[in-house]
């Protein structure tokens, strides 16, 4: 059996899911400040880190979507 799902597609899905969750958490924290914020909370790491993960994840999810993986036989 030759897999139709590339490992890089799985990686993209994982990064995209995490990016969306982390980014959404960061946005939520803007209006609901944490009671015990971590150090450097003013840099809003969840927002830019989550966005970065989501963009990278989206790129891999689209670039290695199953149809393309079958044609190019990438894993």
């Amino acid at each position, binding site marked *: 059996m030759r897999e139709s799902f590339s490992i890089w597609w*799985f*990686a993209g899905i994982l990064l995209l899911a995490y990016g969306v969750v982390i980014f959404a958490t960061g946005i939520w924290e803007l209006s609901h400040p944490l009671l015990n914020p971590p*150090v450097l909370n003013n840099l809003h790491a969840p927002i830019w880190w989550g966005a970065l993960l989501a963009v990278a994840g989206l790129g891999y999810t689209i670039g290695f979507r199953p149809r393309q993986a079958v044609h190019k036989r990438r894993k």
Partner: protein
Amino acid sequence: MHLTALAVSTQLARLNWIDILVIAIYFAIVVFIGFYLRGSSNTSEEFFMAGREMTAWIAGLSFVSANLGSLELMGWAGSAYQYGILAMHWYWIGAIPAMLFLGIVMMPFYYISKTHSVPGYLKLRYGDGARALSAVSFAFMTILMSGINMYSMAIVMKVVLGWDLNFSIWVSSVTVAVYVALGGLKSAIYNEILQFILIWTGALLVPILGLIEVGGWSNLRQQIATNLGRSDYVHLWSTLGHFTDNPMGVNWFGIVFGLGFVVSFGYWTTDFLVVQRILSADSIRSARMAPVIGAAFKMAVPFIVILPGLIALSVLPFHLVAQDVAVQTGQHSFNEVLPLMLVRYCGPGLLGMGVTALIAGFMSGMAGNVSAFSTVWTYDIYGAFLNKKATDKHYVAMGRWSTLIGVLVSVGTAYLVQHAASIMDYVQQLFSFFIAPLFGTVILGMLWKRATKEAGFWGLLAGTVTSIGLWLWVRNDPSALRYVAMSPNAKDMAENIYRALWAWIVCVLVTVVVSYMTQPRPVAELEGLVYGASVLPQEHDDHWYQRPIVWAGIVAVIFIFLNVAFW
């Protein structure tokens, strides 16, 4: 890592539902991959070798990921806090030259021999004696190490999150058992790629935010020197003139020849746990490129492991203490530095990713152990000595069962360690007993046509016995350290390094002497196994920059530059 030290510490953080969601997504994907790949592991070649169809990137990343276990992550972050930047040697000189050597020199012989394992190569080169010795020792130690890794992870989860030990042990080990038993090596490799990405995305924020907090690398160096009242924590080489000049109690000779040559080459070129990933490559070119790619990423790992330990020396408002002190006082030990830094910089969601990174590290290490164990057990013990004529289907079934049994024995080891913490330190040293002499046996077998069957067995046995003997000698008479490690001021790390060096020397000497006393094999029988007796397949790259040797050269130049920059 000292277990009781961790166990008595107080809980550091509490996860909220976002963190739980992040962890749940990870578990869902890894189990899905196991079920998804179960249909592509029907033959032994597919189950144990992933069908030998992995690209260079996949084989290379899983090669590094299998090594990046939970002990590796938390243990070396703790070592960086304890010993400073010297811990970096285990990532650079203690890995990079060996990985490049594997790709450029050794991999062609492993690959064209079509062996399924390192003990399998010994069988082809030296016969059944050397194979049996290395297979039994590897299987035994691998499964014990897997259990110790499991317990380390569980105890950290208890300290950081207050999770029950049994919950952590069983959930994580059953998950690994499911996806490896279903999808074999391919499933392990696929998950190792995800785990590698997760470890980076989960841990990378700590050094980034840490460097912002301390004001950059130069400020970090100054603050560490001010806080500790000494400057030897931030120099890689300039303090290695003598055992007493640095916090690790080691000298340059031990680092270069003991760590950089014997320990490093032994682990990265003959430990089947990592070599198995490269053997799954789809071509000899991929097999040569994979360790080079792995070396490039390995060189960057200190950024997420060593740097957090150094930053902690500057920013933590309290001091971490040695393990035995932590047991008595309830303070945090060195080994908790990475979770402490995660909690310092990561709020909800990010903390869940950081914890997932630690879990992923554990699972990649454990999957590496059980998949390697399953292969060696099935091919080199069961198939070689107990049942030689079974069908391919039977061996695949044995591979699945040995994976499950290997996980169960690992769980048993985890509980054993819980009641006898000192076993953990011993077993880790035991593991090193077999690796250094094995490198002597394999490298002579690959590069020297004259090495004989009898010499392979007796050299390996003599090296292993020497290593164990030296360890027992120092345990019974600590003053023997002046002979074993060349100095009474040497510390544990130095002792391990020098013991490996002696074991390798004895192995090589015995192999050479016995070889000259016994009859060599005809050169024709060594085709595909030994340098000088084999015609290596020609590789045709379209461009010069596609050659593995070119990329190995680039990695080597960066490696030298980094060592000089942090001199």
